[in-house]
């Protein structure tokens, strides 16, 4: 059992734990914290996969910005415990089984299907070293320049939208 395996399973465990906590905790801020836990462990997994930059971005943007925003809003609205209404029937009848079915299905499919099999048999092994930030930026600004700009526009729009929505309507 090599170090990476230990790291992987630790992080995997933590992330799943976080996800479950996110589901079961009634307090929104606890959900937020557990989600942050998930993100952190995913960041470590990205490092494990040699994607340093993505890991950093994951922390900065997700944990550092998005989740802070969530926490901020929770504090702002002073969101207390979630009301315990009875479950929506559809959710009870369809949602729960469906979700688990989906989960199992995908897991099974991945492990059985072409992708899962071939990659498990070491396509991953011939993958090169972790891509450097330089390569990533080159790809971003050459090949994917247009999508990149498009996303910047998207961000701008989101900014305006958020402003319009959240401002005091007078």
């Amino acid at each position, binding site marked *: 059992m090599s170090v*990476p395996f230990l790291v*992987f399973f630790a992080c995997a465990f933590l*992330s*799943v734990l976080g*996800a479950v906590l*996110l*589901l079961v905790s009634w307090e*929104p801020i606890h959900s*937020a914290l557990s*989600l942050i836990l*998930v*993100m952190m462990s*995913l960041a470590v*997994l990205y490092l494990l*996969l*040699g*994607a340093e930059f993505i890991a950093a*971005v*994951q922390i900065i*943007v*997700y944990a550092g910005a998005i989740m802070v*925003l*969530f926490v901020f*809003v*929770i504090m702002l609205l002073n*969101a207390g415990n*979630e*009301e315990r*209404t009875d479950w*929506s029937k559809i*959710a009870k009848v369809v*949602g*729960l089984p469906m*979700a*688990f079915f989906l*989960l199992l299905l*995908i897991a099974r499919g991945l*492990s059985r299907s072409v992708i899962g*099999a071939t*990659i498990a048999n*070491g*396509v*991953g*092994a*011939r*993958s090169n070293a*972790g891509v450097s930030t330089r390569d*990533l930026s080159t*790809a971003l600004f050459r090949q994917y320049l247009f*999508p990149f700009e498009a*996303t910047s526009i998207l*961000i701008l*729009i*989101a*900014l305006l*939208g*958020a*402003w319009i*929505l*959240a401002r005091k309507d007078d």
Partner: protein
Amino acid sequence: MDPGEERRLSIIPISYYLVLSAILFGLGAVGVVFKRNIITILMSIELMLNAVNLAFVAFARAHGQIDGLVFVFFVIVVAAAEAAVGLAIVIMITKNRESLNIERINLLKF
């Protein structure tokens, strides 16, 4: 990282990552369906996005291509935008309906 470490890293089969991401995704879906608090539901969506990102990075690594990472980058950007707008909407809704419970917000019909 030195090549030896590389080799040991790459021994972890990609399918592990994929299964993990599948599990996270499923949990996220469950959250979307079950949770009542709008904010929590948004979080569950973020969780699903994260799961997808993991799958992307894993694939990118498997095929030694950079496109997956680029896509993850875009997903993160979009997620940020989505969170901003979504939370703004949440604030709006709570202003109007004094409740974060999504079942109280049932105007989304004809």
